[in-house]
């Protein structure tokens, strides 16, 4: 049994209004299905489900304002239950405690109580290594679930449990922080940006590094590639830049992740957020998930699709809350460089200027080349200039060899 909770789409979010459900009790859902739409300070967002199962109950009502972390729906998992993104379901003990004296619910609670009945420690099947690890980490082994068929707990199960606990704690902290920051009233997008940027400027010691990248090779390759493509399939510079950033991050992963609890947490997945300005003002930062593993064409598809959904207000919850790094680009007009503000808890932001023709030294003489200014904003708590500089060098290399992107 899984509980679908109001997701947190950033540390500043405390609640959102449920606009509508796209499912009803009894519907079968698969991981990734869009089950409803919420109105947040980031605009209208489609919410996705993170496990396979059958909707058993819709707790939240359409039109209701729901705090982050509150149960919105109950989903009966099929077989193994996958971890729900934010907060997992309550432990059986807690839910038993919360059940009011209502006949129907009592039956359910009885079942859960039976399941949570304590098992004597010696009856728990666990490998010696797993037992040792639980002792070392001070983990109660009876709470760890086995992922194997035999029910034996292995070291990886203990580690998965600890990881989940840590994630829960981080989530609780975010909730606390959000409660401090905001009053119960829903916030506008402007206020949400204000809060995040103020927090960033207050807490993050930014360092800035800048590089001018010769874009001739990249743009020539792009234009050549586009000759054979219909307008629907055409590649645009931002798609290529997203891919180049993702590839460079595989070589310098220190910039990909979060600074939380005074520690850098490097993320394995490279989810490149891309700031999209909205016509009505404000911006949203959806992420292209696992951009390093995607082909340029897959990134193209995701990008086109995401930009149009961002502007129509149909981004998905996962896209808006997953970025591990952000790119901001002011497009092809106006400013030539952008010194960005890092979106916490991320540790780097890449500012792309406009590509303009500038004089450059090329092979011993001066040539006019299309040039892109890239400004990296780094969190000096997490990394030093050396790392940032290495990243920019790798990014430049990627763009000098566009054919291998």
């Amino acid at each position: 049994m899984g509980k679908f909770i109001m997701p947190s789409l950033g540390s500043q979010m405390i609640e959102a209004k449920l606009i509508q459900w796209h499912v009803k009790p009894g519907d079968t859902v698969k991981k990734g299905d869009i089950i409803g739409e919420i109105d947040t300070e980031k605009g209208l967002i489609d919410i996705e489900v993170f496990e396979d199962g059958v909707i058993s109950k819709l707790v939240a009502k359409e039109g209701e304002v729901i705090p982050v972390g509150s149960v919105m729906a109950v989903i009966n998992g099929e077989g193994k239950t996958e971890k729900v993104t934010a907060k997992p379901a309550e432990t059986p003990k807690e839910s038993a405690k919360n059940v009011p004296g209502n006949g129907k619910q009592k039956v359910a609670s009885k079942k859960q109580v039976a399941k949570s009945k304590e098992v004597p420690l010696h009856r728990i099947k666990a490998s010696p290594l797993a037992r040792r690890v639980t002792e070392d980490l001070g983990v109660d082994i009876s709470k760890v679930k086995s992922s194997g068929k035999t029910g034996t707990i292995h070291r990886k199960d203990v580690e998965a449990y600890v990881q989940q606990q840590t994630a829960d704690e981080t989530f609780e902290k975010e909730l606390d922080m959000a409660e401090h920051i905001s009053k119960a009233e829903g916030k506008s997008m402007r206020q949400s940006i204000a809060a995040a940027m103020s927090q960033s400027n207050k807490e993050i010691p930014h360092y800035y590094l800048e590089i001018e990248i010769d874009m001739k090779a990249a743009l020539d390759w792009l234009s050549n590639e586009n000759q054979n493509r219909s307008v629907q399939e055409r590649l645009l510079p931002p798609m290529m830049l997203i891919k180049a950033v993702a590839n460079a991050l595989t070589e310098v992963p220190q910039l990909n992740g979060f600074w939380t609890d005074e520690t850098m947490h490097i993320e394995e997945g490279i989810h490149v957020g891309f700031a999209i300005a909205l016509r009505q003002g404000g911006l949203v930062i959806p992420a292209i998930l696992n951009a390093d593993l995607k082909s340029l064409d897959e990134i193209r598809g995701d990008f086109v699709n995401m930009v149009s959904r961002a502007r129509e207000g149909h981004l998905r919850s996962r896209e808006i809350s997953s970025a591990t790094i952000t790119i901001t680009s002011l497009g092809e007009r106006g400013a030539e460089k952008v010194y960005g503000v890092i979106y916490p808890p991320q540790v780097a932001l890449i500012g792309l200027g406009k590509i303009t023709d500038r004089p450059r030294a090329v092979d011993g003489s001066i040539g006019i080349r299309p040039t892109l200014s890239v400004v990296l904003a780094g969190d000096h708590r997490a990394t030093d200039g050396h790392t940032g500089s290495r990243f920019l060098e790798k990014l430049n290399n990627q763009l000098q060899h566009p054919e291998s992107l």
Partner: protein
Amino acid sequence: MNSSDINTVIRKHLQRVAPEADLDSLNPEDELGPVLDIDSMDFYTMMVGISEDLRVEIPEQEYGNLRTLKNIREFLRKSV
């Protein structure tokens, strides 16, 4: 397809990317980007829409020239 049909399609897609824009006050020689504050993605979306509606292919080398209403109209008149 006549000029007025072409204009209708251009208008429809311009309106989609810049809903609040007053297209009547637009000068045919205005650069659409700065005047309507549309970026390269908006422009791309518009071109895809026009190309699908009019079943016309927009070659890469033409793409950069289509920055004003006048140029877009002329190109479409030739190509449709």
